[in-house]
């Protein structure tokens, strides 16, 4: 795995998640700003998927291949689904949904790194 991309996607997802929860706290619905932020996070995640495919095609492989693929798929599917579900409620709670989705993405990418290089656990 490319550590730089993983770190970048975790950082982006956390920043986006905090921004969403801040908007929830301020009683703001999901707007263009949050959608653009989610788009940036998704772009970094897609770059990570491409990088992972390149690395695997180059001969490296994950310590837990099945889990790695599942987490990789989950990392790019989570935000689109989260955006769709958040837009169903045009209130502060929509922003909350997107915030939870972003935090979930951060956890997924952390787990992605763990199943790529599992140190005995």
């Amino acid at each position: 795995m490319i550590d730089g991309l993983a770190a970048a996607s975790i950082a982006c997802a956390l920043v986006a998640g905090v921004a969403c929860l801040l908007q929830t706290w301020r009683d703001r619905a999901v707007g263009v700003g949050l959608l653009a932020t989610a788009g940036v996070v998704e772009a970094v995640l897609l770059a990570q998927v491409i990088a992972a495919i390149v690395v695997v095609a180059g001969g490296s492989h994950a310590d837990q291949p099945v889990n790695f693929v599942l987490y990789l798929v989950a990392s790019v599917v989570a935000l689109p689904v989260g955006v769709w579900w958040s837009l169903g409620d045009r209130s502060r709670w929509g922003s909350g949904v997107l915030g939870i989705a972003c935090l979930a993405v951060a956890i997924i990418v952390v787990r992605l790194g763990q199943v790529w290089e599992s140190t005995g656990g």
Partner: protein
Amino acid sequence: MDETRPAGSAERGRGASRTASGPGRILVTVYAIFAVAACSRSAVQISTEFDHARVAYLLSAFAAVVYVVATVALARPGAAWQRVAVAACATELVGVLAVGTASVVDSAAFPDQAVWSNYGSGYLLIPVILPVLGLTWLRRTGRRAGG
């Protein structure tokens, strides 16, 4: 287009799920995350290393099913789904308390972190908090429907 829009939105308003609006929308989100996580985890465990810890993995699979039912029931409108959601959340609460206690008493039977072992401590204790929030929310929305 414009003529059909008011009717469409009114219909959506009638069909909207009370339990999946407002804070309930976040509840459904967290339930959905747990449903997906528990399903894929137990599918991998049962298909690759079932003999490693049969009881723990079957309990994980059961937990996964409960999360799926709870997610769908909370997201859907109607009194019937409301009752299904209450049953699912109650099952979840009983399950997480029973499995949590069992895993503390007999930790050998739960070698891997299953979703409900140690009261969900491997998942930030969300598994034990979630059904309590779910039941509280269902009580509130149910009462509003009655009154």
